[in-house]
């Protein structure tokens, strides 16, 4: 059980800055997902918390204590890596026993056996216990690797893309399993991934990392509905949020280059950019973000578009629509019958539109 805090952490490798002034706050018992592309600094963050890497500047706190001088062993964290890191030449049981047999904290043999058996049972690897680790499949290895972490009851679980080397079916199964394990243990998890579906489905909270900076933290719905900037808007959701350039003229969105005019009645932030500073908002270059599912395709709607492409995903169909030069995605129910190059009519849900400044990409709701 632990509350983790990173304060103003910067990490450089030579001339390359991996993390820049990172502040992170992970509450006790929280499932926190760090989402970012390759090279965004996710793994570095994790390794700094684990004590495998020292920050160039900044502080790390575990339960309010500065752990700068603590090694990995003293921090009492568990780490699950993408490459499993199982100890070769040992059986699954020996791998699971390994962290319990450390001299630093001697556990009685009977308890070791009981804990290993219980963990094996939870992860359904009991039948593999006496097998050598190099005879396991990827999914089995990752289970053992997770087992080795939970057998120890550490203060924090750190997981570095543990599911990304697995095939899709297994990934889904382990996703649910991990979430269940976390709920049962009630412990702090920090999970690193580049997969936004994992982030959305597992996290209590998500932190979006871009080039070593934390762009936004919030609950999955926060991140999904109110992205702080266009980067977050594109990072989360599949297909990602449509970003359409244009301007706002007296409560209506006028999209470039065609004067597609759509109603807009969302709030423009507490600073009241639209009301108090209406002059600058009107006519100022903006980017309108709208989720594909908030584009309404119905026969009586105001605007016409042509169907450019249809992707059938079973539960839904993802349409690529085109109006003049602008293309965007819309999600419709799978029952909708559509053909490519058919003309359809659409509108958007004006409440769901997020407005960004075109230049900076920042959401007006946060920055005005």
């Amino acid at each position, binding site marked *: 059980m632990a509350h983790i805090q990173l304060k103003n952490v910067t990490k450089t490798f030579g001339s390359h800055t991996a993390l820049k002034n990172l502040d992170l706050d992970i509450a006790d018992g929280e499932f926190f997902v760090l989402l970012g592309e390759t090279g965004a600094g996710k793994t570095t963050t994790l390794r700094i918390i*684990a004590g*495998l890497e020292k920050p160039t500047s900044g502080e790390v706190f575990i339960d309010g204590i500065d752990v700068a001088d603590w*090694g*990995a*062993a003293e921090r*009492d*964290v*568990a*780490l699950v*890596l993408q*490459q499993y*890191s199982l*100890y*070769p*030449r040992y059986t699954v049981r020996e791998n699971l026993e*390994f*962290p319990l*047999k*450390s*001299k*630093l*904290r001697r556990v009685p043999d009977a308890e070791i056996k009981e804990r290993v058996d219980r963990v094996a049972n939870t992860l359904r690897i009991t039948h593999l216990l006496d097998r050598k680790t190099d005879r396991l499949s990827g999914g089995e290895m990752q289970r053992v690797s997770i087992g*080795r972490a939970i057998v*120890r009851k550490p203060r924090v679980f750190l997981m570095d893309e543990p599911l990304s080397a697995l095939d899709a079916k297994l990934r889904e199964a382990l996703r649910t399993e991990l979430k269940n394990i976390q709920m049962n243990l009630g412990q702090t998890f920090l999970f690193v991934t580049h997969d936004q579906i994992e982030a959305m489905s597992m996290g209590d909270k998500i932190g979006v990392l871009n080039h070593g900076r934390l762009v936004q933290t919030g609950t999955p719905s926060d991140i999904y509905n109110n992205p702080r900037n266009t980067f977050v808007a594109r990072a989360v959701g599949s297909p990602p949020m449509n970003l359409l350039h244009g301007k706002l003229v007296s409560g209506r969105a006028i999209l470039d280059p065609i004067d597609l005019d759509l109603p807009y009645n969302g709030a423009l932030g507490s600073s009241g950019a639209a009301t108090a500073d209406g002059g600058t908002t009107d006519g100022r270059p903006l980017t309108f973000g709208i989720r594909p599912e908030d584009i309404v395709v119905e026969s009586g709607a105001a605007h016409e578009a042509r169907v450019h492409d249809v992707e059938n995903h079973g539960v839904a169909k993802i349409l690529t629509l085109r109006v003049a030069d602008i293309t965007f995605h819309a999600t419709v129910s799978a029952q909708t019958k559509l053909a490519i190059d058919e003309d359809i009519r659409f509108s958007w849900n004006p409440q769901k539109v997020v407005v960004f400044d075109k230049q900076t990409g920042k959401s007006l709701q946060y920055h005005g």
Partner: protein
Amino acid sequence: MATAVIETLDPKSRAASRGMSDIAIRNLFIIPTIAFLIIFNIFPLLYSLGYSFTDFRASTNAPANFVGLQNYRELLNDPFIWTNFSITAKYVIVSVTGQVVVGFGVALLLNRDIPFKGLITTLLLLPMMLSMAVVGLFWKLLYDPSFGIINHVLGLGTFEWLSNADMALYAVAITDIWMWSPFVMLLSLAGLSAVPKHLYEAAAIDRAGSLYTFFRITLPLVAPILMIAIIFRTMEAFKTFDLAYILTSQPTTEVISIRLYKMAFQEWQTGRSSALAYIVLIMILAITNIYVKYLNKVKER
């Protein structure tokens, strides 16, 4: 598959334009080697097997008489031969153990980020590139009781290293350790750097102590390659001749190959020495086989 590779000779190549086929080129390379092996290795090997059953002496013109297993019977019943064997065994154990301890230890020290690592490694490898005879000659100077630098540095006065019957074998072993530890170090270093770093990190996270990590992770992963180094060194140490012969002539350092040499070329008992050579060969084969079995077991684990 091998023939498929051999048969595809580029028709535009120079060899092809001279009318040579792939088979011809293959033979050109292989036949001299095979001929060399047969003339200098296989033939003497078989010929000496024949001699080992006779009382042949290369120094006389007397015809060789077939004596059956008499040579073998007498050799194996000769207590002096067994003394030679036990000296050899002692030498092998001391020298190989020393080489593994020193070589592996140095490899552990070198297996981290230190400045000039490449240069240091190369310098450490130098002893094993020297000729045995040269090493023997200058260690004789180093060991010299009156002006040798070893006694001077250690402050041992005129301690007799090589003419002291109890010390001489160890002195030879120390020289051998100095010369061949780099070999063990080189192989160990290759094994150590092949241990994935993330395993050490996982062990650190699992709060394993450094000794525990060493015995549970490092050693099992390096064991196979270390075994190979030990096999090579044991075989070499078993047939040591030059170092011991050059450094000292004590009866306590008469390893089996020196005995063999004396028997063959000083006493001219050609038939009997052939038999002894075969006994040594069989012993080395047996020891190597035990090691290889063990190596396979280590690999399987």
